[in-house]
């Protein structure tokens, strides 16, 4: 798939995110928007998956450790055909299977329930160990937030992943530099993130996580790594694509009102039109 097509899908994903969070009147648009390219690439290019057979045994797995960006995961899954797009409007509504944080028991395509920060990466490590034990060739991807890596469990999991030489595991850090209380380096700095993962014996790749020209070769490089897991430190822009949400901590966890929703959609429509001119 060419880059332009991926960018168009990503723009649709961003519209889905904003629409779902607006419908829910709650949720996490900022981090969802920052991770849109990464999740789109994983589900449309990188992973061996089949939306018609979400549970197939040899599929690659994805664990959204930063489970609060469920709107991004649901939007990508819907765009990929796991369930109807119109269901995104039920996000966080009573009785909906689209819970505020992903529920593997309900949503096709969700490989692990997550949301309590620090826990998803451990499950991803477990899945990667399972593949090694079974001699299976599937790969396991997980995404953690740059705030999430303040959780000690992330480092417990990382230590074990490298110790067991899980070269079938890729940990993507969505480094948008913002958490609820503000900039991550002002709250409790996780930097240098790359050096920390290097010290834990990961193969580390630094990229711009909103740029497909960097996402694609990084994941390709990770496939070639033997004997150690890979960490991709993806510098991203929180709230990307929506003018008033970009790099603004207050949009970590709140929904746009009707007026703000119109502006957000106008921003994204405009971006979509620009892509059609390319």
């Amino acid at each position, binding site marked *: 798939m060419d880059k332009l097509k991926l960018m168009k899908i990503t723009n649709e994903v961003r519209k889905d995110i904003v629409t779902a969070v607006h419908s829910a009147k709650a949720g996490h648009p900022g981090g969802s928007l920052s991770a849109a390219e990464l999740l789109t690439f994983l589900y449309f290019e990188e992973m061996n998956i089949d939306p018609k057979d979400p549970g197939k045994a040899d599929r690659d797995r994805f664990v959204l450790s930063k489970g609060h960006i469920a709107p991004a995961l649901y939007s990508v899954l819907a765009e990929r055909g796991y369930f109807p797009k119109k269901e995104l409007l039920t996000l966080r509504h009573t009785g909906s299977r689209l819970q505020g944080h992903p529920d593997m028991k309900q949503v096709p395509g969700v490989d692990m*329930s997550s949301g309590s920060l620090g*826990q998803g*990466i*451990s*499950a991803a490590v477990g899945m990667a160990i399972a593949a090694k034990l*079974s001699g299976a060739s599937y790969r396991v991807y997980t995404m953690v937030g740059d705030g999430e890596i303040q959780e000690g469990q992330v480092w*417990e999991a990382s*230590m074990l992943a490298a110790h067991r030489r899980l070269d079938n595991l890729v940990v993507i850090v969505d480094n948008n530099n913002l958490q609820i209380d503000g900039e991550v380096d002002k709250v409790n700095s996780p930097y240098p993130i790359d050096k920390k993962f290097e010290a834990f014996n990961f193969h580390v790749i630094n990229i711009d996580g909103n740029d497909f020209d960097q996402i694609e070769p990084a994941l390709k490089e990770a496939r070639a790594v033997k004997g150690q897991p890979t960490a991709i430190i993806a510098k991203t822009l929180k709230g990307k694509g929506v003018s008033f949400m970009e790099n603004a901590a207050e949009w970590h966890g709140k929904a746009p009102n009707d007026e703000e929703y119109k502006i957000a959609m106008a921003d994204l429509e405009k971006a979509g039109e620009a892509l059609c001119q390319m």
Partner: protein
Amino acid sequence: MSDVKKIATRDSYGDELIALGKEHEDIVVLDADLAEATRSGKFAGVFPERFIDCGIAEANMMGVAAGLAAAGKVPFASSFAMFAAGRAYEQVRNSIGYPHLNVKIGASHAGISVGEDGATHQCNEDIALMRSIPGMTVINPSDYIEGRAAVRAAYEYNGPVYLRFGRLAVPVINDRPDYKFEMGKGVVLREGKDVAIIATGLPVNNCLEAAEMLAADGIDAKVVNIHTIKPLDEELVAAAAKETGKVVTVEEHSVIGGLGSAVCDTLCEKAPTRVLKIGINDVFGESGPALELIEKYGLDAKSIYEKVKKFVNGV
């Protein structure tokens, strides 16, 4: 009683894991640097490739177990009750309980019979914590035979199970040809009409001895062994209460939230009855030889006998 065979329930864990490991390829055993103590090391010795030592990181171990289960393995995650149910409570709740993953938690060193290590390692709250998680099965075997049967039943059941084991060697009381373990079913070990003693785990044997002492005083005590605290055998508990009109619960666990609470939850709805809860009375333990602590905290046969006698006589 010196000829009675004594063996710790934690040994049933290690021994049955080996038996199951020989039969089933999908079993994986995890530990957090306590393989010798939890007896998961027995499995490690036979199946090193299916043993994962996570190091001293119980929270991660529970998440790794969840991932293994999500990928089709049947993981047994081993640690002390304090760390399995206590430290990793939220991981067990959110990564295992919420998605109802097929993870078995092997928790050894439960209760004050841990002994010399003292209060920091004596978990008297794990049953309360684990039974509050929706869909979690909680099993607390009374001896080696029951422990082995419980480990096998946990494997055969699809869903999360918390298995509670002790460090101390305890008498084997279930060594009989007709012994059958059924998850969720209590076992009447002795019939009686004056009082029903409902017990779980290590003190079950002491309750049988206490019942003998009560019999000498003309008190006819029924003794019920509840190995599965959740789901509780509500029918049996209610029937025992109706038959005797007086219920005593006995457990090596806090009187808050354990078997006593589970029994009261059931009885207040199904058969309101006066209940005496014998257990750890909302205090921390302390260092000392296990048998001395069991006596000091009132879980030995004589203490149980005295408390039940007073209760039955309405003192």
